């Protein structure tokens, strides 16, 4: 228990000061009076002094304070950088090792300070102690280093405010930026006036050439040039002059396709290269930007960046080639032309070599079929190719079939529509193109290439659950018009799914013959429609009931599925977090309503097409969410495929990097850290000096406090009155008034 004194609490400070001033004035007057009347005696002086003091005490009435408490150390928040950049090389060992050592030093020197160690990266800081054995398990390295967000979060918390903040980082921060970081930190602290000390984890740049930034001018749109601005850096004493820069698109199942390349001429360790790339396929596409770094490069992982572009499409470009004009061809062309989102280029064979036109060439409004030009030079510019009842043999298409197959494998769409000159009847059996069709072609062109009987196609169970036929079934249910004739095709290829089958004809394996099958090959998709009567969805008694809208519903969905329109995908796939190499990745999958079955997930490398993860999850119902742990992946481009039961699959391409943006620029930034410290009144220290961190003093906190008056007020008053009386008597005896 500690005893101290205080004055009566019912007097305010002004009155107390006034009483003291009056007492002092009285004493001064007394001294002045005694000096004028020499010999007045010491008795008057003493009694005057005592009377004045007692009178003052009677006014102020002092009290005893009995208190019991403890000394509390200052609250200090350590914000440790937990971004991936701390895994880069530091001055001695990695920056992570330096961080651990520095935190240990601060802890040792903290004394009574109450340290709270948090890790900053993305958003609010998390409890994370890099010195703890479980530090790596507590929080995965962050993909960002947002100090600004961490400071704002601290400033806005309702808990006890810190007496000081200590930031331990390499200075390569997302926020505050290089421009006026001190002012930015003051704004982010939002009135929290505490010093921000900084401990620099690295001061020297490692020998490293890297791609520091890749910026795209605007959004990526299919078929339109996209300018890329690529910043190259070279530091740490590495000898860099000219570096080759390339941009390649990662293709599912094939080698990357070179989009553009250039040379970076480095001056003072910096260079900027402008490359223009054109992505022909819409949806998520992965572009690799890489440099050829010189020998001695300490961080090869940042020589290659994988950029995910969500390529939009202004219009779907369709090449529609028909072997002869029919009502089915007419219906498809009119639908393609009526859809404002479709840009269709049409070529119909209107005249064959056996036709007798009875006119000179000048009288004919016909142009040669530019097969070579179309299927070599212009093929990549189309999103989809429709081959409708088209015989490959007479028009020299056979020699372009390998290129057409590659076009599909590299992301193009293909629809083969039936007719006498389609599928096996069109000489496609045994060609490279047959490999990318979703059905096998068993027959040659002269043997049973088609069947003539009339029939009504039958829906499969898969079709009833497939989103791609939902719009059509919305009009007609399971009813379909009668068709005349069908191309004979074989079984569906593995991974393909059949939506319509022939009610009577079987394949060689005994399965119902597919009439409408959808499949994927490499990056692309293909559709086999082994009939030529879909126009009957408009022109039939059934079609008249829907005013022809059923035909549009079917083709809109088929083309949409081919173009990976999310409306027709059987499931949605999301990455729960950005994929970083070596960090566990999870996918969130939501199958569309209507589907039910075992959830299958497959993750494969884009470049090599080797499956790295194959999982069967629980039975899912449509609309139900599932989280699938994929595990840790190596750097590279990946495609995740998901399907429910035996239904169609959907995919999502994504990229995994070792360091990402955090490793793009390996140089530490001490200038930024120093500016932060200076602006907030903090100290800048190197990691080796972390033990010398200036911490605020401890604070005493009372646990118990009791106030008792020294004497009751009447006693003070009585004593003062008595003293005044004695003083008056003394004055009278010495002749004073």
């Amino acid at each position, binding site marked *: 228990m500690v005893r101290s004194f205080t004055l009566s609490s019912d007097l305010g400070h002004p009155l107390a000061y006034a009483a003291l001033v009056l007492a002092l004035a009285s004493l001064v007057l007394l001294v002045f009076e005694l000096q004028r009347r020499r010999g007045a005696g010491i008795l008057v002086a003493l009694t005057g002094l005592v009377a004045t003091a007692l009178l003052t005490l009677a006014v102020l009435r002092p009290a005893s304070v009995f208190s019991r408490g403890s000394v509390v150390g200052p609250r200090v928040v350590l914000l440790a950088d937990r971004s991936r950049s701390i895994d880069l090389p530091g001055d001695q060992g990695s920056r992570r090792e330096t961080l651990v050592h520095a935190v240990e030093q601060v802890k040792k020197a903290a004394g009574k300070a109450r340290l709270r160690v948090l890790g900053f990266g993305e958003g609010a800081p998390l409890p994370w102690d890099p010195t703890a054995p479980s530090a790596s398990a507590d929080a995965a390295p962050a993909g960002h280093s947002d100090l600004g967000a961490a400071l704002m979060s601290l400033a806005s918390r309702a808990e006890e405010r810190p007496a000081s903040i200590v930031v331990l980082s390499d200075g390569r921060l997302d926020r505050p930026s290089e421009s006026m970081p001190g002012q930015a930190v003051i704004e982010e602290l939002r009135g929290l006036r505490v010093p921000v000390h900084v401990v620099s984890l690295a001061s020297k740049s490692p020998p490293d050439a890297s791609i520091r930034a890749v910026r795209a001018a605007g959004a990526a749109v299919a078929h339109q040039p996209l300018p890329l601005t690529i910043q190259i850096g070279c530091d740490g004493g590495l000898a860099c002059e000219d570096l080759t820069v390339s941009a390649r698109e990662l293709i599912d199942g094939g080698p990357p396709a070179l989009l553009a390349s250039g040379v970076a001429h480095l001056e003072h360790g910096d260079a900027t290269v402008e490359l223009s790339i054109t992505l022909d396929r819409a949806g998520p596409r992965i572009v690799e930007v890489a440099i050829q770094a010189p020998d001695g490069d300490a961080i090869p992982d940042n020589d290659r960046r994988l950029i995910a572009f969500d390529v939009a499409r202004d219009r779907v470009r369709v090449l529609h080639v028909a072997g002869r004009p029919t009502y089915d*061809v*007419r219906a498809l062309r009119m639908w393609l032309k009526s859809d404002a989102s479709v840009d269709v280029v049409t070529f119909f064979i209107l005249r064959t070599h*056996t*036709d007798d036109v009875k006119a000179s060439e000048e009288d004919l*409004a016909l142009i040669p079929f530019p097969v070579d030009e179309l299927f070599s030079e212009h093929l990549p510019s189309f999103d989809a190719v429709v081959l409708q009842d088209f015989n490959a043999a007479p028009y020299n298409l056979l020699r372009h079939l390998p290129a057409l197959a590659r076009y599909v494998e590299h992301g193009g769409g293909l629809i083969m529509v039936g007719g*006498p000159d389609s599928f096996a009847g069109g000489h496609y059996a045994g060609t490279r193109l047959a490999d990318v069709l979703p059905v096998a072609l068993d027959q040659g062109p002269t043997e049973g290439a088609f069947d003539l009987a009339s029939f009504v196609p039958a829906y499969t169970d898969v079709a009833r659950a497939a989103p791609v036929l939902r719009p059509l079934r919305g009009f007609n249910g399971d009813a379909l018009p009668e068709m005349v004739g069908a191309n004979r095709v074989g079984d569906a290829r593995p991974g393909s799914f059949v939506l319509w089958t022939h009610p009577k004809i079987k394949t060689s394996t005994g399965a119902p013959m597919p009439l409408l099958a959808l499949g994927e090959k490499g990056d692309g998709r293909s559709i086999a429609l082994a009939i030529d009567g879909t126009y*009957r969805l*408009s022109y039939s008694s059934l079609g008249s009931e829907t005013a*022809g809208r059923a035909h549009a519903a079917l083709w809109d969905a088929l083309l949409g599925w081919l173009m990976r329109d999310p409306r027709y995908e059987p499931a949605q796939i999301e990455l729960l977090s950005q994929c970083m190499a070596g960090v566990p990745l999870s996918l969130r999958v939501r199958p569309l309503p209507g589907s039910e079955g075992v959830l299958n997930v497959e993750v494969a490398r884009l470049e090599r097409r080797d499956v790295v993860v194959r999982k069967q999850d629980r039975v899912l119902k449509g609309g139900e969410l599932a989280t699938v742990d994929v595990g840790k992946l190596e750097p590279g481009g990946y495609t995740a495929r998901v399907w429910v039961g035996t239904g169609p699959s959907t995919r999502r391409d994504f990229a995994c990097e070792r360091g990402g943006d955090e490793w793009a620029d390996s140089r530490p930034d001490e200038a930024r850290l120093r500016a932060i410290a200076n602006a907030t009144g903090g100290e800048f220290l190197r990691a080796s000096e972390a033990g010398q961190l200036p911490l605020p003093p401890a604070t005493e906190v009372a646990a118990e406090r009791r106030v008792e008056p020294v004497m009751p007020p009447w006693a003070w008053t009585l004593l003062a009155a008595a003293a005044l009386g004695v003083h008056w008597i003394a004055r009278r005896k010495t002749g004073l008034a």
Partner: protein
Amino acid sequence: MSARVSRKTFIKQLAMLAGGMSLSRLRAAMAFAEEGAFNPRPLLTGRSTFSGVRASAPARWSHELISRTSAPARLSPSPVRADDDALWSEPFAYFMGDGPIMAFTDAEIAHLRRFFAEGGVLFVDDAVPETGEFTRDAKRELARVLPDAAPIPIGTEHVVFRSFYFIRRPYGRVEGPPKLEAIIRGGNAQVIFSSHDIAGALAQSATGLSSVPVVPGGEIQRERAVRLAVNIAMYVLCSNYKDDQVHAPFLMRRRAVDSP
């Protein structure tokens, strides 16, 4: 399927046989080929029937289309009544007549309206353009079917004049007016009126000889009429295909060269 075999079909049969194709496959191919084939179905309204010297015109039209182009066609077109649901089963009908016609019934109007709503095309051919009574009555009745549209003249600027042959003006059994007329809906000619008696130029006897003389141009004019018929069929099958940007420059150059 018709018992008549065109020269083109005959040539195709020979080629297929030479290739080792069996007769059964040949028959199958031909039958499959008729699916979606051009079918100039005569349209019947009221109590009208399809008979007379021009009854062979639709078959001749199909025959000429098959022999001259890659397009398949039905060699034995069957008439379709305007109030029959079968009208909706195909996108084309051929309406010809030689005199006044009765007012369409409500059922005929309703069926024709749905036919046009689904994109159907009707070719109206006046067998006696000298009087013009059929054209007059057809326009009157079609105005009841499509009250929001009226026929307009169409000349060489329209794609029907270059859908297969370059045609400078229409001809039929008679020289007729220098332009056709059409009701354009949604950018497409859905009703094409001809006052040239195309059926008369196409009509053939059982012996294969022309049934009706063509004046004043004789057989050259008949050939022009056949070409117009082929172009109309190609327009039905391909719509405005020849107006596509990819064709337009080529055709414009060709026209420039051909022009005097």
